[in-house]
């Protein structure tokens, strides 16, 4: 179709040029001069691009979304009342080149559900050696999940929200420390191994309160193999966790994280799956989680389906205490689609149905608070969440 169109245009242009050449030589001169000017403009533009833009690069991302649930169970804080804040955020990222292979990266994020307070999410120095080694130091995203680094960049993801079953049990995001990675390039595939270490001191929501979370002596390893169609990932990390709350959920407790990831993307079919385990001594819940997402791109629209599961493995540690409300068992099923409306803007619509809580609160905040206030009968045993979301990257 395009080649036909191209030929017709060329035909029109050619006959125009020919007519011009035969009858009006002056016009041909003009068009030549315009060509020359255009080329000069291009080379000037190129010089400007090379001299200025290469030193500082600015990128950003933006999301906003509408969420509503059929009850107040509290899946991802969704209730019967419409909510616009939870999914809304604005991020700005700048990269300063300090030399040929060294750069400073800053990422500032303002979130709607944190009163739009601006937070330094990333701030690190990165140096790449020519032999495949890379090292970073500063504040970085904790690389526990396949999508950790793009967690807040909705535009880069197929879903309306990352599967809560896997992405929720770790309530913190960025740590202060250093990492080193090595990439082996094989023919048609590559392996990257990364070791990281550091410290994290942050706040998280727990049972309706903001509590302090400190992870000391974080150490971990990730390994990633890809042939650019299939990707396999493995991660192991450990730390000593101190988690606030009344009563405190943990004091210097041994904590471990294990994860396996798999993804496939051939431009049409999309498959993503992760299997994770969180183990923290003390009251904080140990959970096993998994999800699988399947999607298919039809031009600008990508319908997807996700099934996920999370279950706590240490309910006996909280038995007969108020902290029983932290016990979790939940399955969730999502149907949705991503629509690439214009280059750089995507819209997503999603319906998620969560159920299978057993005797637990399902780990959902509405149910947890209900149970804590002495009204266990008001517990919802399933919930439906509807989401419309808009994502942009620039």
């Amino acid at each position, binding site marked *: 179709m*395009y*080649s036909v*169109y*191209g*030929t017709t245009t*060329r*035909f029109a242009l*050619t*006959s125009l040029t*020919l*007519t011009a050449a*035969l*009858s009006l030589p002056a016009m041909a001169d003009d068009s030549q001069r315009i*060509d020359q000017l*255009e*080329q000069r403009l*291009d*080379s000037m533009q*190129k010089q400007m*691009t090379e001299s200025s833009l290469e030193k500082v*690069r600015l*990128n950003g*991302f933006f999301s906003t979304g509408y969420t509503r649930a059929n009850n107040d169970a509290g899946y991802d804080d969704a209730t019967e009342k419409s909510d616009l804040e939870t999914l809304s955020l604005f991020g700005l*990222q700048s*990269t300063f080149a300090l030399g040929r292979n060294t*750069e400073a*990266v800053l990422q500032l994020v303002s979130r709607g559900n944190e009163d739009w307070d601006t937070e330094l999410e990333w701030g690190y120095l*990165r140096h790449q050696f020519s032999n495949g080694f890379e090292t970073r130091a500063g504040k970085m995203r904790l690389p526990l999940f396949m999508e950790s*680094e*793009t967690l807040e*960049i909705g*535009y*880069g993801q197929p879903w309306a929200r990352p599967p809560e079953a896997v992405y929720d049990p770790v309530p913190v995001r960025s740590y202060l420390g250093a990492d080193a990675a090595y990439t082996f390039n094989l023919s048609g595939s*590559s392996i990257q191994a990364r070791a990281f270490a550091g410290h994290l001191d942050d706040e998280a929501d727990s049972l309706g309160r903001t509590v302090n979370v400190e992870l000391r002596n974080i150490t971990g390893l990730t390994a990633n193999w890809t042939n*650019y169609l299939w990707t396999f990932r493995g991660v192991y990390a450990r730390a000593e966790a101190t988690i606030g709350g009344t009563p405190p959920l943990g004091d210097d407790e041994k904590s471990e994280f294990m994860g396996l990831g798999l993804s496939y993307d051939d*431009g049409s079919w999309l498959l993503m799956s992760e299997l994770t385990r969180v183990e923290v001594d003390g009251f904080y819940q140990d959970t096993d989680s998994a999800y699988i997402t399947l999607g298919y*791109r039809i*031009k*600008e629209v990508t319908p997807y389906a996700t099934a996920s599961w999370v279950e706590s493995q240490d309910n006996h540690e909280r038995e007969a205490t108020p902290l029983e409300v932290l016990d979790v068992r939940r399955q969730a099923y999502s149907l949705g689609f991503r629509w*690439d409306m214009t*280059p*750089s803007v*995507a819209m997503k619509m999603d319906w998620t149905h969560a159920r299978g809580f057993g005797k637990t609160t399902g780990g959902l905040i509405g149910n947890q608070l209900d149970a804590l206030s002495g009204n266990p009968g008001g517990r919802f045993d399933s919930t439906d969440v509807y989401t419309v979301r808009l994502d942009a*990257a620039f």
Partner: protein
Amino acid sequence: MKTRRTSLTVVLAALCLFVGGARAELVIIGHHGGPDTITPQQVKDIYLNRSSRLPDGQRVVAFQLPAGNSMRDEFNELITERNDAWLKSFWSRQVLTGKGHPPREVSSANSMKSVVSSTLGSIGYLDSTLVDDSVKVLLTPEP
């Protein structure tokens, strides 16, 4: 006299249509100081951020035509096998995770030719009818 000139124009134009139509195809072009040939897989690797070097080991600088250009659509179909929506999302992830930057976009076929001819280690693509001595044709992808 005037009618004759018009008919001559029509004949010439028809000839151009025939010749031009037969040769209208996508070609991969590079700087004269670069390699003589390249495989479709190597071009794909460069444009999908899997490789940063040309087959001769030089650091590569890749260029692309703007969205909506028919040669860009043809390039996506024959080489990257990904549509623009996929590529945009892919590159935003690469950029925001510090893994790389998309091929630099030039405004027209003319500027493609001029930047490729003046940039060491460059690679780009063009309609074969617009190619001249200033650049080297590295590959004519088969549909």
